[in-house]
Structure formats: structure tokens, C-alpha cells
């Protein structure tokens, strides 16, 4: 029987990751998937109005967020960033509380729709719904760090559909001009709601655009968290060295419909939808960990049981939290209330 001592490297040791850290990356992916699946269950049970999913993106999000320093670096995420937010500090209970729009939700106190990640306490910038705006906010953080001379790295994540927004171009161009400490992460799942990549992206690559901005653009297999980690760590090092931005395009799959209001069977071939499961990063990574002797079935079962228990307990606590008080609905328009 394989055990950890006899395990072979998946290349992670060369990246400076221990065997335990690799299993922890896997566990973080499991947590994200567990919360995500619970959101869909709660939506179908009528407890949550809307779900927008990160399923299929977990390998990229956990791997890429892993080098980011919690409560020190900054992140401007997007609506699929459930695993990124968890990796960067948000708790399972934070995420579920936000989806339930409870009064003490750390993201918005129940003011924003589900999937609008953000929390000042974790250096995660509050997200809106018009896509691409957040990329400029990460650049603004990086500009602030650069002006002050601080060792801080900002990251922004977005989809390949959003990559076409003018604000994303403006953000990357400006970051390139001043070599700002920022990492741009495009999670390319091939669909902008219903419109496929070849109707969204001229040239079919987002990463190659980086050349025009004067910084590296790399394409990585988003189902491989270690490849994503390697790219992100290099990008993080570059930023800290003062060498400027990096654009990482992670090729991922969208395992679910765009959102709970969408049905992807209307625009995706049934065979294509069926084949998505073969690209599930959780399955692929678990298989690789098993083959390398880093994960055994009993350990996997224990991890899954732990995650299930964590999600169950967090859900119960979140559901017990109070709804927002209508008397607070006019607060926080301005700092000096009443103006």
C-alpha cells in the first residue's frame, strides 16, 4: 500500500511545496466544491435566490491564489471566485452567510447578490456586477503600493468574456507602463454565458495580448493546480521584484450552467456537456495524487467527510444568523450619515 513516505513528486517538491501542502491544496479544492454544491442544493430548496458557480475552476483558483499572502496582498475577484476567496481567507461560513444574504454577511450585509465576493477584513475588494471593473481596482491597489514603496501584490481574476472589456485593456496597459505589482488572471472556460470562445476572443488567446502590454502572458492548464501554482508564484515573485505584471490565462471548464438562471443544454452539445466530467480538476488531481502515492482512499474519504461536516456545520450556523434589519437599509450611503 502506498503511503506518504514512499510518494513520488508531482513536481511540487521542486516548486518548494511539501507533500502535506499538496494534500492541503487538494483539500482546499474539496472545500470549494463542497460549498459550491451546497449552494445549488440550497437554491433548489428555495433558501438561496441565485447561484453562480465556480465548479471546474477550483484547480486554477486554489493553485493561483496559493502564493498570495493573506491579509497582506490584495485581491479583486469575480463571480466565480469561490475557491479563490476561500483560499485567500474567507471562511466557509462567510461564503454561505453571504449567499443567504444575512445581516452580518461580511461581504455586503445582505445587500449584494450571491457570488459578489469581497471583505475588507481579508483584503478582498467588494465586487459589483458589471464585468471587468474590478481589474482596474487591483491596478489601483498596485499603484498605491508602488507610490508608497510597499511590498504588496494585487491580483484580479476574470473570465475570457470579460477580458474583452475596454477597462481590462486600460488596466493592463497602465500596469505595463509602470510595471505595477499586479497579476491578471483570466479563467478561460470557453463560454461567456452562451457565447463560445471563437465568438468572443479574436486570436483565441487572451494570454498573447500581454505581449502588447510589455509583460509576460502565460497559458496554463487550469485543471492542474500545481502548474497554476508555479505560474502564479513566478508572477508573484516578478511583481515583488519590481519587474511588473503577469497575465495568466488558465484553461478551465465550466461544469455547470452559467448560473442557476441558465440552462447550458440550450447552447452546448449534450456530448460536450457529458465530456466535461473528464476535465473535472478534482477528479484529475485526485487521480494524480493517488498515482504518486500522495493520497490514499482512506485519506480521501476522511478529507471528504471532514469537508462535508464543515459545510454542514457552517450552513447550520449561517442559516441561524439574523436577516438584515430594514432599519439599517439607509446606512452607509455616506460616512457622515444623514447627509
Amino acid at each position: 500500500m502506498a503511503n506518504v513516505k514512499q510518494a513520488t513528486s508531482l513536481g511540487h517538491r521542486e516548486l518548494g511545496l511539501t507533500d502535506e501542502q499538496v494534500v492541503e491544496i487538494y483539500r482546499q479544492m474539496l472545500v470549494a466544491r463542497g460549498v459550491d454544491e451546497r449552494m445549488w442544493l440550497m437554491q433548489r430548496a428555495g433558501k438561496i435566490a441565485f447561484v453562480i458557480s465556480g465548479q471546474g475552476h477550483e484547480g486554477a483558483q486554489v493553485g493561483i491564489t496559493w502564493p498570495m499572502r493573506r491579509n497582506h496582498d490584495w485581491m479583486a475577484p469575480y463571480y466565480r471566485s469561490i475557491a479563490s476567496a476561500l483560499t485567500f481567507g474567507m471562511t466557509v461560513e462567510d461564503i454561505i452567510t453571504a449567499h443567504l444574504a444575512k445581516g452580518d454577511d461580511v461581504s455586503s450585509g445582505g445587500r449584494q447578490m450571491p457570488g459578489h465576493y469581497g471583505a475588507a477584513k481579508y483584503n478582498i475588494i467588494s465586487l459589483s456586477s458589471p464585468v471587468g471593473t474590478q481589474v482596474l481596482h487591483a491596478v489601483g491597489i498596485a499603484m498605491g503600493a508602488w507610490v508608497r514603496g510597499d511590498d504588496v501584490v494585487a491580483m484580479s481574476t476574470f473570465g475570457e468574456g470579460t477580458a474583452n472589456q475596454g477597462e481590462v485593456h486600460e488596466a493592463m496597459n497602465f500596469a505595463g507602463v509602470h510595471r505595477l505589482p499586479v497579476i491578471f488572471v483570466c479563467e478561460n472556460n470557453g463560454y461567456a454565458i452562451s457565447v463560445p470562445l471563437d465568438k468572443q476572443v479574436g486570436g483565441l488567446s487572451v494570454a498573447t495580448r500581454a505581449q502588447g502590454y510589455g509583460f509576460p502572458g502565460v497559458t496554463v492548464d487550469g485543471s492542474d493546480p500545481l502548474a497554476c501554482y508555479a505560474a502564479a508564484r513566478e508572477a508573484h515573485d516578478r511583481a515583488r521584484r519590481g519587474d511588473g505584471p503577469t497575465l495568466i490565462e488558465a484553461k478551465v471548464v465550466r461544469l455547470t450552467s452559467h448560473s442557476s438562471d441558465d440552462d447550458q443544454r440550450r447552447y452546448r452539445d449534450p456530448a460536450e456537456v457529458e465530456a466535461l466530467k473528464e476535465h473535472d480538476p478534482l477528479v484529475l488531481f485526485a487521480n494524480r495524487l493517488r498515482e504518486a502515492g500522495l493520497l490514499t482512499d482512506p485519506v480521501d474519504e476522511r478529507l471528504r467527510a471532514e469537508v462535508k461536516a464543515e459545510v454542514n456545520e457552517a450552513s447550520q450556523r449561517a442559516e441561524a444568523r439574523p436577516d438584515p434589519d430594514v432599519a439599517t437599509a439607509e446606512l452607509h450611503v455616506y460616512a457622515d450619515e444623514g447627509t
Partner: protein
Amino acid sequence: MAELNILEAIRAGMDEEMERDPNVMILGEDVGKKGGVFGATDGLWAKYGDKRVLDTPLTEAMIAGAAMGAAIYGLRPIAEMQFADFAYPAFNQIVSEISRMRYRSNGAFGLPMVIRMPYGGGVHGALYHSQSNETYFTATVGLKVVAPGTPADAKGLLKASVRDPDPVMFFEHKKTYRLFKAEVPDGDHVVPIGSAEVARPGKDLSILCYGYMRYCALEAAETLAREDGVEAEVVDLRRLRPLDRATVLGSVTKTGKALVVHEANRFGGFGAEVAATIAEEAFEHLDGPVTRLAGPEVPGVPFQHTLEDWFMLNPAKIVEAARKLAAY
């Protein structure tokens, strides 16, 4: 006490705030070595360097969005839109993001930042260098909107805006930049963003205005006093959002007649809000119709000088409107 014009006063305000607080920075197009297309930041690049007085690419959304990120990070950015007319690429950032951040984060993220915007016509700038587009921003909850009409207010309000914990849209009428000099108090002169100012007391009617219209209204008031014996009270709103209702209502309650004046077009303009406020809250004190004098209903200021003169409000047009109202 220094004699400054409005442009010099704004520059002095920024200079003092940058000296006082290392978190204050300026970003915009041509704000660095050139000192801004109007000269508002002249000399500041040499004094504070090219990080704190930062020339940006020609990307207004970036200017606003990066300023917002920097404000989250703890800086106090002053972003310059070269002309208010060019702010629309930044509209998404200003309206979707900057105005809503505090509310949508339940108070967790505040944005201490200023967006300076030269606005207004009368400078041969035609449709795209002359707009008075303050209404888009006064209609946006979460923004504060300021429009000074004197050098002392320009400096004092600029300094207060930099120190404000919320985003302030700072409208500077281009025609006023070098129009006149006036005394600006020495020292740390801060005009709290809060109150309108009675620029000229009067008993017969109230002229409610801001920016360049203060200058025009004061001149009109002199003519009315001299030629008609009508004593007009000129109220400079200074801050458009939130509106100083108390000063507006106090003046109209006293005079019984309200003339609201702005260069922006009438339909749904900021004056409509002022007029509605007066109609709702001072109805029983009114002795004539709440009247608006505003720019014409055309999409912009036409270029050729006689066309531009036709467009622009001026003291004579204010006198004419005031005479009609005073006759009630």
C-alpha cells in the same frame, strides 16, 4: 491674505494638501511635466515627483478605477478628468463602482477621493469641451458634488474634498479659472462641504446658482438694484449634492420668489430638483412661480462665436428673467 484667481486657488489647495498628507496624490492626463492643460497642477510635478503627480495614458476609466483602488489601499487620490466632457468612459467606474462602494460593502470600504472636472462653456470649446454635465452626478446617490464660484471657495472646498471620507466630484467652471482675482484667507483655509452661501443679501427675489453663474448673478443683481430698485439675493449653492436645503428655503421664505440658474440644459436638470424642493417645502411663502433659467435644449455648445453667445447664459439674460419674476 493672498489675491488669487480660481485656478491658482485650486492649485494652492492641492499643493497644501499634498504637503500636509503624503497619501494625497494626483493622477490624470498631462498633469505632470505640463502641469495640466489649464495649468491647475503647474509646478506640482517638480515638487512632488512623478509618482505623486502621475501622468496617465488617455484612459479615463483607468484614471477613475485606479484612483478607486488607490483609495481602498489608503491613499487620497485627486483624479483629473481633462474635461468633464471626457468623463463618460469613466462613467461606469464612477456610477457603478465609486458611488456604490460604501453602500454595497455595508460600510466596510470607503473611498476618500476627488475627481476634478473642468466644465462649462464660453471658452470656444464647442460640443465636447464645454459641457455642464453635473446632473448625471448629482443624480447619483453616494457621490458628493461640489462647484465653487470664488477663489476662496475653490481652495477651501478643494481641501475639504481631499479630506472628505467619501468621493467628491469637483466641478470647476473653465471660464472662471482666470476670470477674476479675489482674496483667499491665508493658512489652512478649509470650507466644509456643507453649506450654501448667501453671496449677496436681498429682499425681493432669490437667485439660486453655482459656479460661473454666481459671477453672472452678482453682476445681474447690481443691474437690478441700479436700474429697477429690485434687491436680488444671490445664493451660491457651492455644494449640489447633498443640497443645503436650509439655506435655499431660508432665502426663498424671505424673498418669496425663486429664480434657479444653471448653464446645463433645463430638462431634468439640477435646477429641477432645487425648484421641486422649493415648491414642496416653501409653497406657502411663494409670491411667484418658481422659475428656471437654464441652457438651451441643444446637445451641446455650438462652436462659432455668435452661436456660442446665443447658448451661454450671461448677466443680461439673468436680469431679463429676474425682471419677469419680480413683476409678479
